[in-house]
């Protein structure tokens, strides 16, 4: 089976090469059959990787210790669950798992976008295939997970490292890999857009969701890693700025920056070079992070295996990525010019720009500090190391600035904020921050840095609450429902914006948890039997040490009783487990008493004397607010989930909503949301006490009114000239008024022409017409597309004749693709929003 596995990996490499080459050739020659062949080969790689993965898992399940990787990471007594997860427990298997995930992600991305972004797909396939080729090459020539022991086949495996036998560790690596691997998709689309020159915003729409999903998984992976470190490693904390941790954080910073700056490009057609750069840098950092943790180039407190070959291969690959990607960016600079300039520094786009700079700075600072020992050794010959205090000295103030910007962003308007606007928006958030800061100072909490962090948390939460309330109130007026229903409807109507706000609430909670770290108490004591010690508000008494053995491991458990205010509140059991096959590396079983105010965290350090004396060495840690970090991630995931909800799914839910939907429904829905089921519905069509006139202005009553609502453009200036039928995302006063006027005209029995005349006269402009009037000079505007179309057809025809004489390749007949083209055009038009 091992030979079959190796053969499959080799085949996958060959198929990948074929997919990459044939896609590029197909795209250059515009040969549809070659492109289709490339896509087919690309799907085949997924099938091959699935088969190879099945062989690997089968080897683990059947204890095939002739495969070195299986023998090294599993044994016959390992629980079934951990046998399966051992697949990604070691280095070679994790690379294979990486390629498998990438093949799944890549295939999904290509399948979903194959029609909508047909011109990009060949290069997307080629780019992802090239990345897959690199990792497959690593496996085939250097880290083959199917390597077998030719002689002395072990009869028993060494077993998975005990500290990996933890449920968090089971899902942490796949989550982080998914986040890393997912960043390849935006990169592939970006490269495809750069090569083809299709640098309008459509490629951004294709990658936005993929980036968001990958970002969510990256966040999940980082959080699970923190929980695992907190529960399993037993040093009382969850983040130590270790190079391995930093590797996951680097692309998170740049991906976060991209998710913000992409909005600026969508809204204002600015930051085009910047967005392309961020996508490339994010992908580069995922590869660089892998390189850092795999090659041993960075000295860490943890042991990394040094691997010269891997270092050379990764370095070469990274150089190719940088040179090729940025070469393309430079080549396409003329097409990437911004179409707008920054109007004012007091605007949302300026705030996003600053936020982007800071996030990028964070990424490069962490990268610099992580690489500092290696750099210092290269430059000075002496290896200087930096530790957590250095990182914290920089990252704490940066984090506070970021938190401030999180609050400021939603308060600023696009383009330019007026003084009145600023006063109106900043009044309550600033008041909340000042009051919180003053109250904390009065309570004796030091202002720097935790006090300031709490005040800024209040600022951001007030900002977001204000946004929800104001939006909800406007919507309530327009729809006549209660506030809660209106707010839920608001979230449903603009999921990205309000989902984003919920993500910000999650970030606030996470930073609240980080700030609590300033009040951490950490003591190490040796308690004799019956002796007690007081740490913070807790008194801990040693009740003795006991030994148990369950056949797999020997468990040394220290029993303690916890008192608070003189009352017994808990009994806690912290232990050391010595697995029989790994007795040199015992695992720490911490005892944690959780609450939202603080965790009492106990670690037992075993010593042979303890069995005789019944003394216990304990590390007692009080971690204030730590659980807010985990809760914050839950909120962040909920917000991302809302932002990711598909438009159509929501419309469907909206259409099915009964007309009698009331506040009760809204409350129920909110509870469902809070419970994390992540479904939003809205009582959009709620009636009840709705003012008939208001509703009339919102919803077309007749097909004619609907048609007219689609012919008149909203002049609010912030919706990008949507029709008044469409400009409903934020409750828009202008479109509301226009719809009202339209309804009144229809009620008066006016015809289409009369209505159009009324609007052009009333507003003294044809600007608000969805299409120019088909008379006089305006007729040119109607003729123009036909002229362009005719010219285009002539040019294409001419080119087709020219190209048909080139080589043997026959261009496809125009009729072959007509149906698919129509479908694609429909699809694009549906997704124009």
């Amino acid at each position, binding site marked *: 089976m091992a030979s079959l596995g190796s053969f499959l990996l080799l085949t996958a490499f060959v198929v990948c090469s074929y997919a990459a080459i044939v896609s590029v050739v197909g795209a250059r020659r515009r040969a549809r059959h070659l492109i289709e062949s490339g896509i087919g080969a690309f799907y085949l790689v997924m099938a091959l990787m699935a088969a190879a993965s099945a062989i690997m898992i089968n080897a683990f399940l059947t204890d095939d210790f002739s495969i070195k990787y299986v023998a090294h990471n599993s044994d016959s007594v390992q629980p079934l669950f951990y046998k399966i997860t051992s697949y990604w427990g070691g280095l070679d298997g994790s690379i294979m798992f990486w390629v498998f995930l990438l093949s799944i992600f890549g295939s999904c991305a290509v399948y979903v976008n194959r029609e909508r972004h047909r011109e990009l797909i060949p290069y997307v396939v080629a780019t992802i295939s090239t990345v897959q080729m690199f990792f497959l090459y690593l496996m085939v020539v250097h880290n083959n997970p199917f390597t077998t022991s030719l002689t002395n086949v072990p009869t028993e495996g060494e077993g998975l490292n005990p500290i990996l036998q933890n449920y968090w560790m089971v899902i942490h690596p796949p989550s982080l890999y998914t986040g890393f691997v997912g960043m390849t998709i935006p990169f592939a689309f970006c490269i495809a857009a750069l090569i083809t020159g299709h640098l309008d915003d459509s490629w951004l729409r294709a990658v936005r969701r993929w980036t968001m999903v990958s970002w969510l998984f990256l966040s999940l992976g980082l959080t699970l890693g923190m929980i*695992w470190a907190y529960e399993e490693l037993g040093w009382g904390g969850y983040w130590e700025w270790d190079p391995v941790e930093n590797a996951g954080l680097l692309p998170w910073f740049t991906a976060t920056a991209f998710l913000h700056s992409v909005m600026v490009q969508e809204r204002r057609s600015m930051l085009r070079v910047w967005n392309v750069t961020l996508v490339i840098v994010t992908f580069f950092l995922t590869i660089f992070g892998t390189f850092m943790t795999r090659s041993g180039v960075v000295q860490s407190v943890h042991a990394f295996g040094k691997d010269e070959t891997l270092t050379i291969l990764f370095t070469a690959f990274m150089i190719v990525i940088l040179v090729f990607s940025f070469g393309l960016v430079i080549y396409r600079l003329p097409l990437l010019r911004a179409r707008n300039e920054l109007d004012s520094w007091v605007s949302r786009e300026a705030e996003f720009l600053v936020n982007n700079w800071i996030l990028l700075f964070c990424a490069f600072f962490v990268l610099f500090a992580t690489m500092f020992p290696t750099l210092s050794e290269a430059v000075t010959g002496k290896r200087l190391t930096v530790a957590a205090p250095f990182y914290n000295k920089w990252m704490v103030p940066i984090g506070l600035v970021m938190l401030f910007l999180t609050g400021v962003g939603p308060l600023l308007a696009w383009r330019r904020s007026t003084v009145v606007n600023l006063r109106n928006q900043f009044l309550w958030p600033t008041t909340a921050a000042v009051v919180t800061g003053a109250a904390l100072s009065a309570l004796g909490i030091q202002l720097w840095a935790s006090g300031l962090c709490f005040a800024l948390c209040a600022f951001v939460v007030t900002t977001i609450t204000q946004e929800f309330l104001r939006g909800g109130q406007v919507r309530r007026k327009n729809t006549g429902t209660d506030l809660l229903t209106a707010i839920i409807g608001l979230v449903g109507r603009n999921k990205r914006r309000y989902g984003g706000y919920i993500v910000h609430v999650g970030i606030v909670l996470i930073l609240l948890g980080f700030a609590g770290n300033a009040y951490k108490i950490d003591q*190490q*004591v040796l308690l004799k039997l019956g002796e007690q010690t007081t740490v913070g508000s807790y008194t801990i008494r040693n009740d003795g040490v006991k030994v148990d053995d369950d056949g797999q491991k020997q468990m040394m458990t220290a029993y303690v009783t916890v008192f608070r205010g003189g009352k017994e509140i808990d009994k806690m059991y912290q232990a050391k487990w010595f697995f029989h096959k790994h007795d040199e590396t015992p695992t720490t079983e911490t005892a944690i008493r959780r609450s939202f105010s603080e965790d009492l965290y106990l*670690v037992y350090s075993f010593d042979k004397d303890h069995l005789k004396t019944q003394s216990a060495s304990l590390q007692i840690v009080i971690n204030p607010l730590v659980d807010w970090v985990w809760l914050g991630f839950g909120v962040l995931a909920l917000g991302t989930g809302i932002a990711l909800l598909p438009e159509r799914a929501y419309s469907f839910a909206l259409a099915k909503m009964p007309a009698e939907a009331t506040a009760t429904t809204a409350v129920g829905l909110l509870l469902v949301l809070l419970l994390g089921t992540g479904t939003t519905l809205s009582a959009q069509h709620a009636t009840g006490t709705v003012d008939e006139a208001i509703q009339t202005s919102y919803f077309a009553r007749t097909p004619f009114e609907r048609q007219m609502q689609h012919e008149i453009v909203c002049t609010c200036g912030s919706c990008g000239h949507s029709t008044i039928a469409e400009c409903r995302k934020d409750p828009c006063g202008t479109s509301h008024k226009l719809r009202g006027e339209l309804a009144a005209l229809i009620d008066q029995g006016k015809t289409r022409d009369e209505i159009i005349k009324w609007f052009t006269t009333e507003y003294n402009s044809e600007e608000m017409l969805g299409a120019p009037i088909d008379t006089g000079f305006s007729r040119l505007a109607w003729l123009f597309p036909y002229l362009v179309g005719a010219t285009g057809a002539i040019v294409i025809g001419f080119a087709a004749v020219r190209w048909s004489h080139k080589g043997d390749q026959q261009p496809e007949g125009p009729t072959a693709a007509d149906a698919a083209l129509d479908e694609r055009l429909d699809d694009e038009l549906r997704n124009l929003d």
Partner: protein
Amino acid sequence: MTHRYIKIGATAAVLILAFTGLMWSTLREGTSYFMYVDEVMANPQAWEGKPLQIHGYVVPGSRMKKPDTLEWQFKVQNNPARSGQPGQVIDAYYKGIVPDTFNDEAEVVLKGRLTANVFQTEPNGVIAKCPSKYEAAKASAGL
């Protein structure tokens, strides 16, 4: 245009200077030298009082714990005893809970400062490595 470039240049210069200054000042406080026992003991006086991270191996049988306390005295040498050439040896003192893998011959990194007689390890300053197994653990933990 020239005026604009001057403004951009001046802003960039100020930012770079501020960044370099801050980095310099924080690096001076936040860094320590990563040294091997042989490197330190070649000229111990030169390293006295400086923040150090010393890499070495626990000398077998040298670990001593004061009864009913968390105080440890032990020796660390440049190379493992099994190598036959253990190299220079340094005396170390530590008060606190030691890692689970702090055994004879364990590969350790000690954080602290060198005094005239002994290396004073700072709280939580003993990091013991497990050369064969921990690699896989962290490799998959981070990536």
